[in-house]
């Protein structure tokens, strides 16, 4: 049957058809739907892990036990999971181990634009790159076979446009070959120096064999058209190039981007007057060509930044541009905002009143960095809010009483807890605020170890945050309702004044959760409104200023009451 599937859905279908038995992932745009869709198949054990390192270790353990296994993540997730990846490369697998990593050229929803292909090269594994949903399904299945054939983890690299585009996909049946027998083999599975040295030699041999395979693999395909222009490309760029150049160019499409072939590239490149390497982000393929003396044009004409498209390629190679209608309208930006009723809003307003330095983290609450709240000073990576605050407070103790860290519940479990242990252990005078909205919000509502539910919606044990932070040595722990502005401000002020570390848990479920009951919409009494615009300071999308007065959109307001607490004139009720 042919279906219109997202790239991510097609990967999930590929897992199912390949007989994959264990899936463990941590969410991250644009990779999340792979695991969400995989969870719809009862034939697989599918789980959210606390972070990507755990996910990859779960999948690695399952593969060694003899089950085809998988973990998925966004590009920065692979930084977290790099440690197990590099050594799983040495142990190899038993049953196939496939990892999907989704890069985000253009940074639609990421904090950096790193290129994951370097990880395949550095870990000496293998990386396939599909160019549409059909290939997402087929390559996922191929990846399991290659993993078993070469005894290596195999990475499937996606990018936003592949993960989040729908295209026609032929689906098939599941073939499950059961659990492969596990045989104890310390030389292969116990990585300590004496055993790891011969395994490193194995890895180097393996790469040679994989490279030889890549020379003739049907995953790397050549399409001959014009003798003038040759294009070497992969993934989404292949689609852009085809649309821009059509049969004005010939193509070498690389379905396997690591290891790269040598003879195949040389033989292809030789035949054209001009050879372009078209690849988003880094000059990965180009560098390989240069190393082997293959003359190509790449980043000399194409950018290292952002997403490509057919128009970028048509302009660069053919000098062609489309006509369009222009106007001089100054269009204001429309950045994403905290939703109406979002519990993060009250918390950040309290911080604004306290005029503190805020060591920020990644989640919906990062939006509080934007006006009008503008209440985040730094954001680095998941978990860094806590540890970076500790570093700051050690460097500048005089300002420790004017600094806090903010971190979401999912992010705290992912990698904030280790920073908090550091704070307790190294006697830090730091205040950490956990924004517990009972869900992983930013990536679209995934359960996590604090929510009491598994990915399949089954009841699970829930981390007790109060007990957890006490157990690591934090004695001062308070819980506040962020929609109560005064109480929240008072509680944080008290913890800032107190000596020693504290944790404030700002607790209220995400306003978009189905079980959250909303109050009736509020309205502005135009007689009482003096147009002071106090209520506009919280960045609520339901509040606007019309005809000289504040006004609340009744279709958007969920009655959270935060604006009402700000109005000194009692105009909102």
């Amino acid at each position, binding site marked *: 049957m042919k279906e*219109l599937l*997202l790239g991510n859905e097609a990967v999930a279908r590929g897992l199912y058809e390949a007989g994959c038995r264990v899936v463990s992932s941590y969410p991250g*745009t*644009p990779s*999340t*739907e792979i695991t969400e869709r995989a969870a719809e198949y009862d034939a697989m054990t599918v789980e959210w892990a606390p972070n990507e390192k755990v996910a990859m270790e779960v999948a690695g353990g399952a593969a060694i036990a003899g089950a085809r296994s998988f973990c998925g993540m966004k590009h920065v997730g692979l930084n977290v999971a790099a440690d197990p990846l590099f050594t799983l490369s040495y142990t190899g697998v038993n049953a196939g181990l496939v990892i999907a990593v989704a890069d985000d050229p253009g940074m*639609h*929803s990421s904090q950096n634009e790193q290129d994951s292909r370097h990880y395949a090269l550095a870990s000496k594994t293998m990386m396939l790159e599909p160019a*549409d949903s059909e290939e997402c399904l087929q390559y996922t299945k191929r990846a399991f076979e290659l993993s078993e054939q070469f005894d290596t983890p195999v990475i499937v690299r996606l990018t*936003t*446009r592949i993960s*989040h*585009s*729908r*295209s*026609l996909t032929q689906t098939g049946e599941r073939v499950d070959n059961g659990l492969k027998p596990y045989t104890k083999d310390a030389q292969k599975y116990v990585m300590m120096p004496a055993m790891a040295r011969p395994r490193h030699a194995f890895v180097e041999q393996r790469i040679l064999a994989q490279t030889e395979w890549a020379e003739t693999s049907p995953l790397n395909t050549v399409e001959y058209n014009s003798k003038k222009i040759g294009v070497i490309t992969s993934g*989404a760029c292949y*689609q*852009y190039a*085809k*649309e*821009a150049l059509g049969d004005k160019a010939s193509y070498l499409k690389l379905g396997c981007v690591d290891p790269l072939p040598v003879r195949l590239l040389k033989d292809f490149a030789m035949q054209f007057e001009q050879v372009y390497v078209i690849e988003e982000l880094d000059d990965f393929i180009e560098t390989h060509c240069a190393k082997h003396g293959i003359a190509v044009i790449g980043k000399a004409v194409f950018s290292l930044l952002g997403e490509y*498209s*057919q*128009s970028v390629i048509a302009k660069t190679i053919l000098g062609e*541009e*489309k*006509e*369009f*209608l*222009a*106007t*001089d*309208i*100054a*269009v*204001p*930006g*429309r*950045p*994403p*905002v*905290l*939703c109406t009723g979002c519990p993060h809003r009250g918390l950040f307003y309290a911080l604004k009143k306290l005029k503190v330095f805020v060591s920020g983290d990644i989640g*919906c609450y990062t*939006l509080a960095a*934007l*006006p*009008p709240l503008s209440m985040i000073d730094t954001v680095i990576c998941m978990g860094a809010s806590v540890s970076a605050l500790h570093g700051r407070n050690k460097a500048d103790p005089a300002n420790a009483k004017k600094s806090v860290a903010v971190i979401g519940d999912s992010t705290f479990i992912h990698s904030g807890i280790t920073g908090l242990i550091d704070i307790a252990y190294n006697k830090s005078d730091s205040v950490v605020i956990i924004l517990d909205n009972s869900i992983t919000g*930013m*990536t*679209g509502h995934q359960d996590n170890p604090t929510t009491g539910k598994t990915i399949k919606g089954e009841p699970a044990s829930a981390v007790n945050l109060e007990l957890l932070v006490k157990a690591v040595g934090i004695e001062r722990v308070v819980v506040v309702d962020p929609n109560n502005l005064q109480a929240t401000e008072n509680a944080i002020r008290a913890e800032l004044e107190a000596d020693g570390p504290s944790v404030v848990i700002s607790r209220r479920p995400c306003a978009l959760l189905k079980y959250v009951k909303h109050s009736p919409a509020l309205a502005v009494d135009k007689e009482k409104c003096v147009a002071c*615009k106090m209520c*506009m300071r919280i*960045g609520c*999308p339901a*509040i*606007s*200023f019309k005809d000289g007065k504040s006004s609340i959109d009744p*279709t958007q307001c969920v009655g959270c009451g935060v604006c009402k607490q700000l109005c000194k004139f009692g105009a909102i009720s």
Partner: protein
Amino acid sequence: MSVKSIMIVGVGGQGTLLASRLLGSALLSQGYDVKVSEVHGMSQRGGAVVTYVKYGENVASPVVRQGEADIILAFELLEAARWFDFLKPEGKLVVNTRQIDPMPVVSGSAVYPEGVLKTLRAAGAAITAIDALPLAEQAGSEKAVNVVLIGAMASQTDLPVEVWQAAIKATVPPKFLEMNLKAFELGFNYKQS
């Protein structure tokens, strides 16, 4: 047949994703090769959202760029202006006249431009401007705004009306079917006054 490109643009939360899914399934039933490109994540929280739908014999790139769209369906006026240069000079714009202030306008650091529709018309585009909310209410629910807009856009394509109706039947729950079919019809039959 050469590839046709449609863009659906709006504000996160307005139901643009349902619209693109409906469109995708209508085109699929006609035997076209179809690609639909969505952006999830950050853009959902009230930010600007865009979906590309491309169809034809053989679609390569899933995205639409400047000067390439045959039709732009804009759920909000400012968003029509934001993506206007993506329209082909001979392309068609179907726009909901509702205005939703973005946060920089709400917080006073930017202004919502005036006379957007007039400026776009003056630039030479073929525009259908429609206030979809009263039509949706007439169909039975303010939630059906997106289906009214799909109807208005559908009348600009060469797909027969039955194909759209079948796609709606396949996509919406039976409970809301009648209301959605009505909403579609009101949009489809809308004549620019």
